[in-house]
């Protein structure tokens, strides 16, 4: 597959290397002359110097035959414009933009970018998992459906310990999928399942009702 990568920083460079290893045809577009030379020195002639938002540069790069276009510069606005040029001027079927400001995820979607990858969110989620007291951990986003899979831990002194699932004011659209207890097999909760301290609950919810779900499960 012919893939164009805009931005030859650390992300662009390692991405190019990984995709080359998988046997794809890669071209990195990088503004900085030294950086561009470095990439060519390391990976072979797979980097061209230029502005990845410019129609002229992208024409030269053969963007018209690219099947995928990935913009990974450090600036959200540059990534947006590069992807929009690729999409609207060259009809690239799949455009992917890296974003730093998590709020831009919805904006980019609305503006026609196929996929966004928020490095800030990924780092945040990984750190959340490492903080043992964090009340809610995001495990997975099902983007097209507006759903997310989260994990909620029931603290020992929670007011919901000893209550049955049917007694909890669960928000609409949230489903408890699995309860993990220490030294036990995971169980699929029913309406009569009684919550215990230290239960880890895996649930599907929407970003809007996440807060309500957390309160319903943890009490207070």
């Amino acid at each position, binding site marked *: 597959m012919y893939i164009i990568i805009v931005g030859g920083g650390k992300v662009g460079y390692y991405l190019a290397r990984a995709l080359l290893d998988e046997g794809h045809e890669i071209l990195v577009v990088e503004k900085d002359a030294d950086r561009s030379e470095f990439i060519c020195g390391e990976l072979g002639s797979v980097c061209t110097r230029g502005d990845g938002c410019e*129609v*002229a540069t992208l024409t030269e790069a053969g963007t018209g035959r690219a099947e995928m276009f990935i913009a990974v510069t450090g600036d*959200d606005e540059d990534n947006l414009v590069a992807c929009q040029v690729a999409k609207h001027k060259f009809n690239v079927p799949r455009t992917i933009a890296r974003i730093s400001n998590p*709020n831009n995820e919805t*904006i980019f979607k609305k503006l026609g970018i196929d996929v966004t990858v928020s490095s800030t969110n990924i780092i945040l989620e990984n750190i959340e998992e490492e903080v043992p007291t964090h009340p809610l951990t995001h495990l997975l986003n099902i983007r097209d459906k507006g759903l997310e899979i989260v994990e909620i831990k029931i603290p020992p002194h929670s007011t919901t310990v000893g209550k049955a699932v049917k007694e909890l004011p669960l928000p609409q659209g949230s489903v408890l999928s699995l309860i993990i207890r220490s030294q036990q097999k995971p169980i699929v909760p029913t309406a009569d399942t009684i919550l215990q301290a230290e239960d880890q609950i895996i649930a599907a919810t929407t970003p809007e009702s996440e807060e309500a779900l957390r309160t319903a499960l943890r009490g207070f």
Partner: protein
Amino acid sequence: MKVVIMGCGRVGARLAGLLDIEGHSVAILDTDDYSFRRLSPDFGGTALVGNGVDEESLKKAGIEEADVFVALTQGDNRNVMAAQIAKHIFNVPKVVCRIYDPLRRELYNSLGIEAFSPTTIFAQMLKEKLER
């Protein structure tokens, strides 16, 4: 009418002044408050430090009630992104932006963003002057 201008450079500050004198309600955004020195001392509008590609800053500047949004920073991409946010997220009725790169301007015009390229306009003007 209510106008939000992003970028308080020479053009932004001047436009803000002109609209303010005519009695329009003007809010001008810039990431650097030093830029506001360009505004005239009797400027009656609001000057706000903030980034125009950030939804929150735009809301603070009153984008939700704005009739007009103008993007005039030095960065083409910043202008284009802010203009699209104003048009597609906040549904501002009139959105205008500056894009120096003529090819990029053409593309965004075709995508429904009203954009002007000073490069094209000024080159054309100079040419006409020289031919006279």
